[in-house]
């Protein structure tokens, strides 16, 4: 496709935005193609003239010189404060991202109190930044997370760790849950959870007046996602899809909800000076309380597995198992590091998956013809009753397309963050080392130049005509790219693909007649702003 001729062309002019760094997804990249080192100066460096050869063709400004941050457009600090704190811009971060891009261009600067952010809303600039990453890329300042862990004597995990600590853990974990072949073996575990999901849909809809509707579908998908990721991480079932959820799991869900309900305060907890906690103590206390709950839950499950392994060893039995067993037996990480990573990976693997499943169900319900085409493809390749495994998905390109298209329209992380590890010229501006970047995935996802008819739900745009068909897709990279990309990407894809196939085999999914169109809001992640109510109608 066009990528062969377009590699160097600056296509896709877009927008930008700013965006906050949210937890979730451990993103990215590689030590590759770096720009020559310029200097290490503080942000807001004076204008600097660079030799032409240091600049990429697309980055070269018309004037032929590199501009400084001072010359970069962007909203005024005061305007931004009003927008976010007075007009609740936090819940509209994705829209403000688009709006600022239209207003200021594809690269702009913003101030959030003490935090200075350069936003990039252009797929070529995003590619440039991600391709030039160091061996241990940093997403954002995670000081408040680190502070909690130091306070409680806990280790950091993949989200909160940086540098060599991060790289060491990432090297161990990626060899277990990132390769498609390694993840494919989880098919039967995930299918067992999908079976329970289908049963639960039957049970819930039978309680509805019309015998078909399930209200607030995300509530159910949340439990599915939690059960699914826990079955892989802990090699254990939690019982979230039973009618009576065990107390322990309920407590965890409460801690998780507390964590997310505090998004606005905790997200910027790091930006609030410590001395202010004396005056406003609540955010920090709740932040610590929810982490206590999350860690406690992980510790219970890890310790349980540890004692099972010990019992097997004592009995002289051969120890076999999955991810957690391997981590505990191999001792490549300390037990504290295992607690921390299990905690952070579970945290990152629940809402992300459930929101995506909610949106894809909603989009399929809103587009019955698309749903029919996807269903036909499933029946053609698998029939109506055969549960799919990972290996079957390559025969179902529309199912993959549905997930990709859903994440393009509703990227759970509307933007991602990077801290510049060295000076770099981006879009004609010198961005000094240490600058916080916001990569505006939401804006680029809606660019017609990246995705023709960008507002429309078209899963078929992702279906390749043949193996040589390439899609120039840096405009939509919902899992990030490179060595700090989402480590749970393959697990999430498996959970989404297997659930969607089996739901379509069992039901035609319709929008409840009483539902109004549902829009997105940002609440840490891009989530449905209102409950999504769906009708699950038996297939003839």
């Amino acid at each position: 496709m066009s990528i062969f001729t377009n590699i160097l062309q600056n296509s896709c002019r877009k927008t930008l935005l700013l965006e906050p760094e949210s937890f979730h997804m451990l993103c990215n990249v590689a030590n590759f193609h770096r720009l020559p080192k310029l200097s290490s100066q503080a942000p807001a460096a004076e204008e600097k003239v660079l030799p032409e050869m240091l600049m990429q063709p697309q980055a070269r400004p018309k004037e032929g010189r590199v501009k400084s941050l001072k010359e970069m457009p962007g909203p005024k600090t005061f305007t931004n404060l009003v927008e976010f704190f007075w007009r609740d811009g936090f819940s509209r971060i994705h829209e403000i991202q688009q709006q600022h891009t239209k207003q200021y261009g594809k690269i702009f600067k913003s101030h959030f109190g003490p935090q200075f952010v350069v936003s990039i809303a252009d797929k070529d600039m995003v590619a440039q930044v991600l391709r030039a990453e160091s061996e241990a890329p940093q997403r954002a300042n995670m000081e408040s997370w680190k502070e909690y862990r130091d306070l409680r004597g806990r280790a950091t995990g993949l989200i909160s760790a940086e540098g060599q600590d991060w790289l060491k853990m990432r090297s161990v974990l990626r060899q277990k849950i990132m390769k498609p072949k390694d993840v494919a073996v989880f098919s039967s575990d995930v299918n067992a959870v999908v079976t329970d999901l289908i049963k639960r849909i039957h049970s819930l809809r039978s309680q509805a007046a019309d015998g078909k509707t399930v209200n607030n579908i995300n509530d159910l998908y949340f439990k599915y996602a939690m059960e699914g990721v826990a079955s892989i991480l802990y090699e254990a079932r939690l019982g979230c899809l039973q009618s009576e959820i065990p107390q322990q799991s309920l407590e965890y869900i409460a801690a998780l909800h507390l964590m997310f309900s505090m998004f606005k305060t905790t997200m910027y907890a790091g930006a609030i000076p410590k001395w202010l906690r004396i005056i406003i103590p609540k955010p920090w206390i709740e932040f610590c309380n929810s982490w206590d709950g999350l860690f406690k839950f992980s510790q219970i499950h890890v310790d349980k597995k540890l004692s099972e392994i010990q019992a097997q060893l004592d009995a002289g039995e051969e120890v076999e198992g999955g991810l957690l067993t391997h981590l505990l037996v191999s001792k490549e990480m300390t037990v504290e590091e295992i607690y921390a990573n299990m905690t952070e990976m579970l945290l990152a693997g629940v809402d992300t998956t459930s929101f995506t499943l909610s949106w894809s169900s909603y989009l399929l319900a809103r587009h019955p013809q698309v749903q029919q085409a996807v269903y036909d493809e499933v029946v053609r390749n698998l029939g109506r009753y055969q549960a799919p495994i990972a290996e079957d998905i390559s025969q179902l390109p529309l199912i993959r397309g549905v997930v990709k298209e859903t994440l393009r329209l509703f990227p759970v992380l509307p933007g991602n963050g990077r801290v510049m590890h060295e000076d770099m010229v981006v879009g004609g501006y010198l961005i000094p080392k240490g600058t916080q970047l916001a990569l505006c995935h939401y804006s680029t996802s809606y660019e017609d130049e990246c995705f023709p008819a960008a507002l429309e739900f078209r899963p078929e745009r992702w279906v390749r005509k043949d193996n040589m068909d390439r899609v120039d897709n840096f405009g939509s990279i919902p899992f990030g790219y490179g060595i700090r990309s989402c480590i749970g990407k393959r697990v999430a894809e498996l959970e989404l693909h297997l659930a969607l196939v089996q739901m379509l085999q069992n039901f035609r999914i319709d929008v409840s007649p009483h539902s109004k169109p549902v829009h997105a809001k940002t609440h840490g992640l891009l989530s449905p702003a209102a409950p999504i109510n769906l009708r699950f109608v038996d297939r003839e």
Partner: protein
Amino acid sequence: MISKQTPLRTLRGQRHTACGFSRAFSSSTGTLRSEDKVTVHFINRDGEKITTEGKIGDSLLDVVVNKNLDIDGFGACEGTLACSTCHLIFDENIFKQLDPVTDEEMDMLDLAYGLTETSRLGCQICLSKSMNGMTVSVPEGVADVRQAADMGLTPS
């Protein structure tokens, strides 16, 4: 239904590559018979030709790592299909014989710099006897292109 494999079977010090189990440590390759090895020529970004040998069944990423070849930034994600830094360009006759490309590899190729019609990811290509003597090229990097463009040599 597939049976559940236990990751435990992956012993420490081994990497489970696209090509099966492979040694992270190359020390034992010295004991291999010559017929278990194939010769591969890498053309590096600067045009330098690096000739080396790899064990049949190893991936091209294994070869680069085990032989400690000096290719900047190669294989950053260690073969986990999270990046495209082990992108290599093949001769057409060899390219046609390669194992089929998976969806996941195609997705990462979409994000590779300097993609060609005979591009693949080195971590997914396993050495076979018929590859003996083949030449693979490391695509030019962003920096090289910048310099070429500056000299009026903008590639098409």
